[in-house]
């Protein structure tokens, strides 16, 4: 290990140090939430700055296994924002239920380390290690309320399906490694390129390995028909955890997709384009159709998050068809989705500050009058999830759908499916708004006071949702430089 290695991995190393410091702080002053949250937030600020600083000078470390390029920096900043916002939203929910905050924050920061490792991997083995480091803390967080039957039930389902898919992914990885002779993403891409160019044949073993990799990744990002764990895991988990799970591991799974499909398997894009096409169409349609029938807002948002996976896959399909705008749309979608979805879950978490409040639709009856600010924010996030201008969600959908239209051919069909789905989705998002403003609550519970951190976090997510909707151009330079890092202009 050399000095330059250390500067390249500085953000990742800092994350591990922050996680250890949070645990230490909790040992020195047990149960002191101000200290724990202070350490986490200050630490994450430093990690964010380090990420931006390392991002100035892209480079590799450890003999080319770890790579920092513009895409790494872009994704790392999203991950840091996700974890910081989740830490802001958590205390209001965890404290009344007697759940410790320091451990929550420490587990979350370890998961951040995994996500950053995925984003920076130039080697399939590092990618797998990062993926596991990202999802194993997720299992723990899902079961964080360990005396609650729903939380543990969500956790056990998330864990079993998660490890099952990891095993499948790993089996595929073993074959790809054995038959291409390397785990380096660049070497795998070169070997696959030779096969496509006709200098070598695609052996059945390698084809099988690629199929297993695809299946494993589809599980992780909850694409239909590999989505069964999602609704139970999301509904059962404590609400701030659900918020995190719906964006953190989701964007992390897309980081895996970008590194595996858009980088290692780019030469085979004509082949996987078909798979992604089918996955995207199924995921959007089924996610939205089932969401229509849900009475529980958390479960509804779980299906809606499945549908959003589908929209993001549209961007990936457009990229496979040769439009780099699809990749840019996918990255923009990731950012917009992060803020609007975290915001929506934060509103639910705020409502559930009083233990025993369910996340059923009735909870939202009369919210617009009871708590006007929360009501307005929820409307904003739901309109953004629907994709109505001028919110971030509109441009996110517009970019991926435009890219699909530009790609032409069969992808026009995918664009039409996406537009129809966006229209159908409006129904279930607007239903929550109808409940908030047009239904009278059965009992009139006294409003609860919300913590300063939660209000700060809601403010940040709301402002970002509006800013990205009014001035999407602000994000475009970084989005396109991140896309350029892996996307060669195919056409």
């Amino acid at each position, binding site marked *: 290990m050399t000095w330059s290695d250390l500067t390249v991995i500085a953000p990742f190393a800092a994350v591990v140090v922050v996680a250890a410091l949070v645990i230490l702080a909790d040992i020195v002053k047990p149960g002191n939430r101000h200290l724990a949250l202070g350490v986490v937030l200050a630490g994450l600020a430093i990690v964010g700055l380090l990420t931006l600083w390392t991002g100035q000078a892209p480079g590799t470390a450890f003999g080319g296994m770890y790579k920092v390029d513009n895409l790494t920096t872009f994704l790392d900043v999203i991950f840091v924002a996700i974890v910081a916002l989740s830490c802001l939203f958590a205390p209001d929910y965890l404290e009344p239920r007697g759940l410790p905050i320091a451990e929550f924050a420490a587990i979350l920061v370890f998961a951040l380390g995994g996500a950053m490792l995925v984003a920076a991997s130039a080697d399939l*083995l590092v990618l*797998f*290690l990062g993926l*596991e480091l990202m999802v*194993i803390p997720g*299992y*723990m967080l899902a*079961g964080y309320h*360990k*005396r*609650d*039957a*729903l939380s*543990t*039930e*969500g*956790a*056990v*389902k998330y*864990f*079993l399906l998660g*490890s*099952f898919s*990891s*095993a*499948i992914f*790993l*089996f595929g990885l*073993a*074959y790809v*490694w*054995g038959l291409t*002779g390397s*785990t380096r993403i660049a070497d795998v891409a070169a070997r696959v390129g030779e096969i496509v160019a006709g200098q070598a044949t695609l052996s059945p*073993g390698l084809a099988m390995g690629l199929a297993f990799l695809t299946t494993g990744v589809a599980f992780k990002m909850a694409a239909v028909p590999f989505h069964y764990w999602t*609704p*139970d895991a999301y*509904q*059962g988990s404590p609400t701030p955890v659900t918020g995190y799970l719906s964006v953190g591991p989701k964007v992390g799974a897309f980081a895996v997709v970008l590194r595996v499909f858009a980088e290692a398997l780019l030469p085979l894009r004509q082949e996987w384009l078909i798979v992604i096409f089918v996955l995207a169409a199924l995921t959007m349609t089924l996610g939205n159709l089932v969401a229509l029938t849900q009475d529980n807002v958390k*479960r509804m948002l779980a299906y809606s998050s499945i549908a959003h996976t589908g929209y993001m896959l549209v961007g990936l399909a457009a990229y496979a068809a040769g439009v780099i705008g699809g990749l840019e749309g996918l990255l923009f979608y990731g950012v917009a989705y992060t803020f609007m979805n975290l915001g929506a879950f934060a509103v639910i978490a705020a409502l559930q500050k009083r233990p025993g409040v369910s996340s059923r639709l009735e909870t939202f009856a009369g919210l617009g009058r009871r708590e006007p600010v929360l009501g307005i924010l929820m409307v904003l996030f739901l309109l953004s999830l629907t994709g109505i201008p001028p919110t971030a969600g509109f441009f996110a959908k517009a970019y991926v759908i435009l890219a699909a239209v530009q790609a032409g051919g069969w992808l026009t069909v995918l664009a039409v499916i996406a537009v129809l789905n966006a229209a159908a989705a409006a129904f279930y998002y607007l239903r929550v708004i109808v409940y908030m403003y047009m239904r009278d609550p059965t009992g009139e519970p006294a409003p609860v006071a919300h913590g300063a951190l939660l209000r700060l976090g809601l403010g940040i997510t709301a402002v970002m949702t509006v800013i990205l909707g009014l001035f999407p151009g602000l994000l475009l330079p970084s989005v396109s430089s991140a896309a350029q890092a892996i996307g060669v202009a195919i056409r």
Partner: protein
Amino acid sequence: MSQSLDAYLVVSGILFAIGTFGFLARRNAISMLMSIELMLNAVNLTIVSFGAFIPALNGTASVIALMVMAVAAAEATVGLAIVMAIYRNRRTPLVDEYDAMRQ
């Protein structure tokens, strides 16, 4: 000892299939966990046999296999803890009785 890589790959493929079947067919959370371990062991057998038969992969094979074992151990630890937690709440290890979220 067989001299062909294919024979080892077939054995590991069969192990993997048994693990997959066990995961899908068993209803006991602990059995499902064991099935996942079997799948991971199949992966390790694949990796080690690639390493034994292809000289260029010899060195990396053991490293990858060791790493897979470490990851499997971490996963099993968390998994057993989660199964313990749900057993305390529900008094059953059978996953089809974990249906509190289906109305």
